[in-house]
């Protein structure tokens, strides 16, 4: 027996995907020309699947801050936060994030994945129960498993189902932690946070909100969906990432809980990994300042999202949610989704291909993410390519 034998089904599906053209899950970007254009397979390509919501990856102030930090502090910290990896920049970013989010404290993590892993596994223990939305991100799933807590899934964005499950799962000697996302990354739908907060209060639970995709995008100041819906005061812990609106890599958690800082000595994914590099910290600090100073970026993003949503709807595509930074197009099956993804790429538009089991309910999706940096010309070209795709999808695929 070979150690990889257990992946036979996965290997067969992968081989089938590779046979259709380019590998959708390891696409090589050869060069970049700003936040929204790249060279892929020698072709100029519009990027419509990068989560670069505010287009800050090429912001001159962010780049300069990163370059200066590289020169001054070097390429990496070579140690964890609890050893030699806490620089003044890490502390400064934490203070700035706490202030931006209007919270007592913030903790920075090396990746967004680890932010959920560390926060969830640090907060919940084996006497606690975690109640988690069924459309969870892998980092939430893994954090739940790592915690050792009892994990109960509730139906996606269904506060009534959450209520029932909280009711029938008492936690004698332990606590209840609800985990939801502000903006769900696959379908682009928004959490019913006001109702979830009411259920949370009824059961005396704690609430953790992952604003990975909604930070910088929702709310008057860009704090996320909780700000947008006016329930920040009822959210106990907020997790976010640097790799989307902030254009870097890393993550954070903020809270008003007076003992929140205990996570620094209890959360293993925080303690046992090297801290984020100086250039990342510096560019994220600059990006955070940009988000605070330039609300027009958010306005532009929403304008683009509405434009693209309307255009795709006019072309007859079925979108999974109302206009927002994530626009997911449902396709009937894996074959047509893979065909459509390849077709778009060949015509110079990159989107994300999302397939089961990585998607809820077995959905096959073309997942588009909109950026404030997309120009009117970008969107016009994109819609032109989608019009051609719609025509091709109207024909039997066997004819291709």
């Amino acid at each position, binding site marked *: 027996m070979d150690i990889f034998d257990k992946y036979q*089904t996965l290997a067969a599906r992968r081989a089938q995907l590779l046979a259709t053209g380019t590998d959708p899950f390891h696409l090589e970007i050869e060069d970049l020309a700003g936040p929204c254009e790249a060279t892929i397979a020698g072709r100029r390509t519009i990027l419509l699947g990068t989560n670069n919501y505010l287009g800050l990856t090429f912001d001159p102030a962010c780049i300069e801050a990163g370059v200066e930090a590289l020169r001054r502090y070097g390429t990496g910290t070579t140690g964890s936060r609890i050893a030699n990896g806490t620089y003044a920049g890490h502390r400064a970013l934490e203070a700035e994030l706490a202030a931006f989010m209007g919270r007592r404290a913030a903790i920075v993590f090396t990746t967004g994945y680890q932010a959920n892993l560390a926060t969830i596994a640090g907060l919940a223990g084996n006497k606690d129960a975690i109640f*988690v939305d*069924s459309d969870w991100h892998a980092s939430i*799933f893994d954090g*739940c*498993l790592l915690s050792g807590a*009892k*994990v*109960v*899934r509730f*139906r996606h964005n269904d506060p009534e189902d959450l209520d029932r*499950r909280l009711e*029938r*799962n008492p936690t004698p000697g332990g606590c209840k932690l609800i985990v939801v996302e502000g903006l769900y990354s696959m379908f682009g739908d928004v959490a019913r946070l006001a109702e979830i907060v009411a259920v949370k209060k009824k059961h005396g639970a704690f609430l953790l909100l992952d604003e990975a995709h909604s930070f910088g995008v929702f709310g008057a100041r860009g704090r996320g969906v909780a700000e947008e819906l006016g329930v920040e005061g009822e959210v106990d812990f907020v997790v976010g990432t640097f790799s989307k609106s902030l254009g870097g890599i890393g993550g954070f958690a903020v809270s008003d809980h007076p003992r929140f800082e205990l996570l620094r000595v209890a959360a293993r994914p925080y303690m046992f990994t090297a801290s984020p590099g100086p250039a990342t910290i510096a560019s994220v600090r600059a990006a955070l300042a940009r988000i605070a100073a330039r609300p027009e970026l958010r306005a532009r993003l929403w304008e683009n999202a509405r434009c693209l949503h309307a255009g795709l709807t006019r072309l007859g595509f079925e979108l999974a949610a109302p206009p927002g930074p994530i626009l997911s197009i449902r396709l009937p099956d894996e074959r047509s989704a893979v065909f459509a993804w390849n077709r778009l790429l060949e015509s110079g538009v990159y989107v994300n291909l999302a397939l*089961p*089991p*990585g*998607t*809820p*309910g*077995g959905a096959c999706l073309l997942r588009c993410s909109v950026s404030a940096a997309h120009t009117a010309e970008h969107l016009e070209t994109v819609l032109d390519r989608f019009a051609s795709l719609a025509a091709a999808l109207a024909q039997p695929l066997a004819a291709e």
Partner: protein
Amino acid sequence: MPAAMTTPDPDRLLAEVSELVARFAPPGAKLERTTELTSDLSIDSVAAMDLVMEIEDRYGIDVPVNEIADLVTLGDLVDLVARQLGARG
């Protein structure tokens, strides 16, 4: 509302759970205690969790997610449901 509030006998439980599993399995698939959820029915890890959610609603129970990963056969699933129903009393 949950359909059953007491533990059904093993054969009836197998029949009831099989009925729910059939919704996630290829049409006409043979469903026996030894049928493997992944290799025989192509029920992946996410679909397995969705299937368990249907079962939870049917019986008014909650199966901890931590235990779903250990399921291999339909029989394992039936036994897990029986344990949860027994624990509920």
